[in-house]
């Protein structure tokens, strides 16, 4: 994760909106824990609403969306694996527990990164995530 100044200093309103895109995924993270798709939907709705916004807002909405997209398959696999253990003949094993711990660890790192980004972006600083930031750079082009 890199923390730096953006090409142009964002206005107060822009910083607030961009920060909200991360807050959206943080709030949804709590509510969406049992159903991983909820996190993605919340961020997607916020992204859709801000597609036509300024570059700074659009860039951070996209990064927030990609971060959720990246977590979705990992969380979904964990969710459905758990369901299959509860409702089918699938047995709980070391592989499952290891996977669950790994996913939880990744989610904790993502949660902390999201909180840090929300705070930094609210102050007008630009934060690019490892891989997700690069992906966002490819998709969201400067005006």
């Amino acid at each position, binding site marked *: 994760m890199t923390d730096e100044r953006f090409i142009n200093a964002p206005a107060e309103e822009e910083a607030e909106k961009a920060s909200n895109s991360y807050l959206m995924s943080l709030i949804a993270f709590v509510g969406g824990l049992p159903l991983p798709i909820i996190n993605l939907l919340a961020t997607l709705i916020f992204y859709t609403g801000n597609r036509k916004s300024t570059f700074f807002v659009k860039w951070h909405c996209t990064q927030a969306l990609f971060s959720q997209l990246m977590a979705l398959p990992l969380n979904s696999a964990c969710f459905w694996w758990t369901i299959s253990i509860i409702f089918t003949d699938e047995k709980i094993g070391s592989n499952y527990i290891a996977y669950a711990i790994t996913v939880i660890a990744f989610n904790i790192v993502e949660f902390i990164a999201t909180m840090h980004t929300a705070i930094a972006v609210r102050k007008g600083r630009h934060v690019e995530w*490892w891989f997700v930031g690069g992906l966002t750079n*490819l998709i969201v082009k*400067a005006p």
Partner: protein
Amino acid sequence: MVVCRWFDQSNCESPMKKLLTEFILLAILFFGTWYGLSRIDWITLFKIDRASADLEQKIGDLLWKSLKTSEGEITSDSVLLPVNILLDHLCKKNPIDREKIKIHVLKNDEINAFALPDNHLVIYSGLLLACQNESEFCGVLSHELAHIQKGHVMNKLVKETGLSVLISMSTGNGNSTIVKKAIEQLSSTAYDRKFETEADLTAVDYMINAEMDPEALANFLYRLSDESLPEQLYWISTHPESKQRSVKIMEVIKGRTFQKIPVIGSLKWTALQNAIRQNSE
């Protein structure tokens, strides 16, 4: 190190290449962590096996105590001795730990046998009277032993009753209605078709290993499914599609020859049935 940003693309490596490298590193980090953690024996570490064994034992004892008080148990040696000889023989010839199987014969006209958690095997006197010979009885016994050995009993109970209810039962919070319902589920409803087929095929193997005639199980299923179904035929009514199962068993053993060595013999089998009649009066 050169930092590549969207607003300054000069003197930096291709963004795609950088992205791919980051993705690969991220994937390695994730799968590496998963692989590393999976090397740890979490099941032993968290004592999951021990906890589930304790739960099974508590549930098994609870259900058996409840069943024992509602139905009369036959404790006569003239009944238990030959039944135990047959069970010992099946266990000895197969990888089944005889010590862990707790066999009970109950006074009940229903033609039924079922397994409870913690390796309790319940036989109704009606079943012993309905079987024409020791091989038929051993066929049913093998089928129930297969359910125990394959872990079907707790699996069914967890699926149908729910783990939280079972844990609550094991801590003494289960009321008699839940206990009765659990017994009913295990004694009067069939397992999944997959489990029933697996138990049938395993029973055939057990009988072959024990030098008994596996055709007897098929015959028993076919004979009882062919008759008009009286209320007492619980084992058949709770094990649907008996004819198809009988045919399936016949297909599996078709063309094969087996050693058929009697274990207690027909005289002792008749004596056992007479003892059952005396004890049921």
